[in-house]
């Protein structure tokens, strides 16, 4: 299905604006880096038989475009500050992926599907790598094969106590038992580690929920309905007293009415019905507030992406003062 004429015009206008932006002023979408030489003195280690030496390398730090322009103006042949092709390609790739995801709002398309697949693939691979290097290697292998891991992978591995080593062997056994779920005949074996996981999780959560949500929240609900607020002179301050009392009354009434709504052992008629109705209103206001906060969160994320496109990629705005924007300086002067 071809896009309608109106939408073709909108897309063409956006593409034309990007083209104009690329050809005016200092251009757009480039990342510059500056060389920073690093030298580290490595001490001799008699135990390992290594000699003292100096290790040096060059670190390339990203710098604002204006630093490159200033360096070029001072010396056109300088190489200290230069364009980073790798980072520039990364920037353009980020802009392309952002626009590809946004393009779904028009309709499903290959660019969106590519970006979606890339995100899922990269996330899955990243989580797997993190799980392997942050959990399996240091915790499991580091405990059951400490010398091998310290000698070949993690020189700074901390020595584990014998209790921890035994615990890791048990964890390894439970982990292998869990994998038996893949076997049709031995699937029942995976029930044991599952039971262990459920038991431990339930034990941890019950205690913490009772402490933090049931007891502490119940205590927080016991509020004086007439809260006397006093000023600096010790006299009762009328306005704060009224507001604080009203706030406490609203909390107590809200808790009682919401609890009544979820109390199904009595038919919701008469006083119970009216309380439940008030409870519904409280719930609706809560859902509305949650929706409002969610919208706020999503708009903040959208704004961050739009800022990235306008600032880092298009060089349309410069809130951080990273560049010299001749093309927009006239507009700035208008405000």
């Amino acid at each position: 299905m071809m896009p309608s004429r109106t939408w073709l015009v909108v897309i063409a206008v956006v593409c034309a604006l990007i083209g104009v932006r690329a050809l005016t002023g200092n251009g757009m979408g480039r990342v510059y880096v500056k060389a920073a030489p690093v030298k580290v003195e490595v001490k001799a280690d008699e135990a390992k038989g290594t000699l003292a030496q100096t290790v040096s390398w060059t670190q390339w730090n990203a710098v604002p475009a204006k630093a490159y322009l200033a360096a070029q103006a001072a010396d056109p042949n300088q190489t200290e500050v230069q364009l980073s092709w790798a980072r520039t390609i990364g920037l353009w790739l980020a802009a392309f992926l952002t626009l590809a995801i946004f393009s779904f709002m028009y309709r499903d398309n290959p660019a969106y599907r590519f970006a979606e697949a890339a995100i899922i693939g990269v996330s899955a691979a990243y989580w797997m790598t993190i799980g392997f290097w942050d959990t399996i290697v240091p915790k499991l292998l580091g405990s059951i094969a400490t010398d091998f891991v310290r000698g070949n992978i993690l020189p700074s591995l901390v020595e584990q106590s014998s209790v921890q080593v035994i615990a890791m062997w048990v964890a390894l056994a439970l982990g292998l038992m869990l994998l038996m779920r893949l076997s049709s005949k031995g699937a029942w074996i995976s029930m044991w580690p599952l039971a262990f996981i459920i038991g431990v999780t339930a034990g941890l959560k019950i205690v913490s929920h009772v402490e933090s949500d049931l007891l502490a929240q119940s205590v927080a609900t016991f509020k004086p309905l007439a809260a006397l607020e006093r000023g600096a002179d010790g006299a009762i301050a009328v306005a704060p007293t009224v507001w604080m009392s009203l706030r406490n009354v609203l909390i107590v009434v809200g808790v009682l009415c919401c609890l009544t709504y979820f109390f199904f052992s009595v038919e919701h008629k008469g006083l119970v019905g009216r309380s439940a109705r008030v409870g519904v209103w409280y719930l609706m206001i809560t859902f509305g507030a949650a929706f409002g906060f969610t919208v706020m969160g999503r708009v903040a994320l959208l704004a961050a992406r739009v800022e990235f496109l306008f600032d880092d990629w298009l060089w349309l705005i410069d809130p951080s003062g990273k560049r010299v924007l001749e093309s927009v300086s006239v507009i700035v002067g208008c405000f």
Partner: protein
Amino acid sequence: MDGVGGVAVSSFARILEGLDRRWIFLAMAIAVAGPIVYIGLTGKTLPETATPAAEAVYDAIEALPSGSRVLMSFDFDPASGGELIPMATSLVHQCAARGHKMYFIALWPLGPQLIEETIKRVIRADYPHLKDGVDYINFGYQAGNEAVMKVMLTDFVKAFPKTAGGGASGEVPMMNGVTRVSDFPLLITVSAGYPGAKEWVQYVVSSSGGAIEMVTGCTGVQTPQLYPYFPGQLTGMLGAIKGAAEYESLVNENISKASGDARVEPKYQEAQRRMGPQLGAHLLMVVLIALGNFAYFAKRRESVRGAA
């Protein structure tokens, strides 16, 4: 509203009903992009008045004597950066300005990179006299979610045996006097979900019996879930980008006043800049909700008349 007016209302309602949703997306894009361009070019931001929750965060950090230990947990990833990075930046800014010792940890795998970026953006750039391992330290990520929190209650070094740089935690000079999490007078978490602020309240603050004071900066989605904990179990709270903007303005106002420098670095105004697009988007949402309701009632009125 009979006659010509009634016909006009009905036809307008029908246009709204058949409106292609992509026009709404375009309107939202303009509502968000417009203020970003305006604020980006002029540098003007909307004024912010701090609410008690944001003020409590500022006061909790300010009330600590200079040099106090502050445990900062970065429990988020770049996906929530639009909301949480401005909070993290300002929290570190205030702690560094007050001279507190900062202990960074992360319970999310991508947290350490965000910690490193924040250290680079705030501490190394504006507080170069602060030394790694003496004034601040990054312990990196530790897998285990609530289990890590439970271990920290009794043995911090056991939960984080190494620093992000690979050194032994116990050998860091800053760790003198730190055995467990209650040795930190203040715990700050910047939280995007699980594990995050809720788990810190459930497993650490509540278990300590009130010995640990905690403030949080959290995403908009988490904010309604965390409000019941304030001001009892949570001393202060920055809810979504609005909370971040309020706190940012408080920090900027007071730190600038103290230093006598009227100019505020743009990196410390990120949340305030994002309140412009918020205003545009929310106004559009209000208009759309009003128009949606108008179309609904106009259609209902029409169908009632048709039935009669």
